[in-house]
């Protein structure tokens, strides 16, 4: 009765929406979790179908007009290789993290509100998926606010573990709202000058009306969108909300956020910079490359150094996330095929590695109640699987060959070398890897080469945590060894973003 294939783009967003609301009625105990897992699993399956559909279609684009209104007047869902890829990441990581969440949430969140927690959790995924699939500029803002509001609430749920979660959440709320308002303002400026809200339509208008791109209004819109997006994706000088939020959020939430939230921010940047303004304006007429590459490089180095000094491992990984985001931004700021492809590939690779590592930390919190460098001493023997996952993830952050991180860094370095006068950036990438070696080594040393403080027996993490953790880490190794899929999608997406032929 329902042709699922024809309605895939909308089902991906509305199923988590409807089912997220229904989560409230699922009652107590394991039921909300099972429901959330079923929902995210279904969505993951649908994104795989959508990916196949996109790859099979002749144009490489799947368009869906909501309410059957023509896209110029209504709202359009528009999926190409890039969206489908990001959707796959968000839904996949969302699914795996939901499986993982059970044990961790049982420990960290009062039992009487698990149904509300999972409702917000699923709605957060709904918002993130919605941003990724939509082709309408204002729809992006509304969905952005859904994902932000849910994330504020999810972060604040760490309040029972540490009161810092509350201030972290409020600080993120204020910065995030200011960022979102800047985005809203930028969209308003663009709407005023183009008269439309559809991204494709906007782009056509910007391109077909000479002089419009030189107008000061478009210039200011561009600047404010860039600042707003940078706040949302935590680009270096505007990343101040991120370390605290990741540190104090419940473990499962940290894993989800690290793997999806900032990635979707980067995706929005792709859409605004490449699809709406176009490469010519964003990277040739404007000094965007210079600004973004400077911020990203500074971010890679500064946060790398800061990460080394942390004793709280969650905070260490949070700083490392900002640095890794620097690689992603550095990649697309180069605006050449290799750079953008590296950036797209690193979105996946970082999501897998960092998600897996945060899950490992969550397992440590589960068994020890904390996760600082002292509590992992000697843990290499007591929780061998967890620490091995952490170590493999760390190798990925370094960019060790045969891990996924290597592939994306390879593209990035190539991209840097292709641009004239940009070769020092390749040095920055390598320096960042060196810093990653240092901060990963500290943990590895503590875990494998130091004696524990006491001889308390510590059990290995439960299977329900280990399986998702190793799914993520295993996938990162898989994509490190077999880079065809990532490489193909990343290059296709990069070419379509840059407007170069396939």
């Amino acid at each position, binding site marked *: 009765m329902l042709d699922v294939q024809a309605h895939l783009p909308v089902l991906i967003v509305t199923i988590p929406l409807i089912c997220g609301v229904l989560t409230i009625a699922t009652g107590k105990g394991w039921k909300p979790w099972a429901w959330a897992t079923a929902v995210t699993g279904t969505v993951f399956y649908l994104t795989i179908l959508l990916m196949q559909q996109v790859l099979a279609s002749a144009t490489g684009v799947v368009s869906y007009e909501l309410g059957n209104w023509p896209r110029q007047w209504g709202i359009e869902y528009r999926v190409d290789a890039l969206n489908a890829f990001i959707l796959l990441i968000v839904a996949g990581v969302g699914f795996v993290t939901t499986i993982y969440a059970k044990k961790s949430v049982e420990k960290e969140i009062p039992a009487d509100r698990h149904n509300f927690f999972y409702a917000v959790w699923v709605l957060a995924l709904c918002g993130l998926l919605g941003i990724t699939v939509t082709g309408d500029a*204002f729809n992006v*803002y*509304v969905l952005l*606010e859904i994902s932000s*509001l849910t994330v*504020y*609430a999810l972060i*604040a749920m760490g*309040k029972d573990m*540490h*009161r*810092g979660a*509350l*201030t972290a*959440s*409020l600080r993120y*709320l*204020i910065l995030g*709202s*200011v960022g979102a*308002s800047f985005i*809203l*303002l930028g969209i*308003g400026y663009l*709407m*005023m000058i183009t008269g439309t*809200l559809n991204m494709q339509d906007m782009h056509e208008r910007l391109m077909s009306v000479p002089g419009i791109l030189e107008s000061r209004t478009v210039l200011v819109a561009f600047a404010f969108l860039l600042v707003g997006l940078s706040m949302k994706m935590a680009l270096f000088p505007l990343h101040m909300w991120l370390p605290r939020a990741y540190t104090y959020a419940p473990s499962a939430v940290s894993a989800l956020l690290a793997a999806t939230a900032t990635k979707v921010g980067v995706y929005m940047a792709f859409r605004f910079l490449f699809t709406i303004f176009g490469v010519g304006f964003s990277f040739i007429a404007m000094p965007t490359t210079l600004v973004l590459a400077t911020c990203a490089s500074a971010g890679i180095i500064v946060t790398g150094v800061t990460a080394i000094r942390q*004793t*709280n491992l969650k905070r260490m990984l949070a700083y490392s996330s900002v640095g890794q985001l620097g690689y992603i931004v550095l990649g697309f700021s180069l605006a050449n095929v290799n750079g953008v492809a590296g950036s797209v590939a690193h979105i996946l690779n970082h999501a897998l590695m960092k998600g897996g590592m945060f899950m490992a930390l969550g397992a440590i919190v589960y068994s020890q109640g*904390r996760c*600082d*460098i*002292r*509590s992992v001493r000697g843990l290499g023997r007591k929780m061998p699987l967890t620490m091995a996952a952490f170590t493999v993830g760390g190798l990925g952050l370094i960019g060790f060959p045969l891990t996924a991180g290597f592939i994306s860094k390879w593209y990035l370095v190539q991209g840097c070398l292709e641009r004239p006068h940009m070769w020092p950036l390749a040095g920055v990438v390598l320096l960042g890897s060196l810093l990653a070696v240092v901060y990963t080594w500290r943990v590895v040393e503590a875990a494998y080469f130091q004696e524990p*403080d006491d001889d308390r027996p510590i059990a290995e993490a439960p299977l329900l945590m280990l399986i998702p953790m190793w799914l993520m880490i295993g996938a990162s190794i898989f994509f490190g060894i077999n880079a065809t899929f990532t490489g193909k999608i990343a290059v296709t997406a990069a070419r379509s973003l840059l407007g170069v032929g396939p």
Partner: protein
Amino acid sequence: MTDVLGIYNYWIYVVLMMIGLYGVIAKPNLIKQAIALGLFQTGIFLYYISMAVIDGGTAPIWTTIEDGAQKFQGPYDNPLPHVLILTAIVVSVSVLAVALALIINIKRSYGTIEADEIERMDHEDRLIEYRAGQAPDAADDAEARHHA
């Protein structure tokens, strides 16, 4: 250059926005920050609604006048920004509600809603956390120094 009279309305929205932004940055009181955030957003709403105005226009509602016959009443203001702002107002009140809930929680666990005092307490928390995370001998040393 466009005549200034034609764009003064946009300047007022900038002024409102900036008053809000100033409040968000400069005021340490969290409730003040939440209110200022609201002002900031209202500035943007004003911008959107200003762009919908058309000379000699009326509200975009087809009115029924005299014997139920509908009468066309000249150019209507653009309804699109109105719709967008309706949505944005709802979003802003939702953000305000969540912010206030967080502030109440902060008051519960910190005992204050002044950002600078909270910042100080957070800093102390982090120092404790940092010490606890160091090697045990270093932590003991720190504790010994603290007691000395």
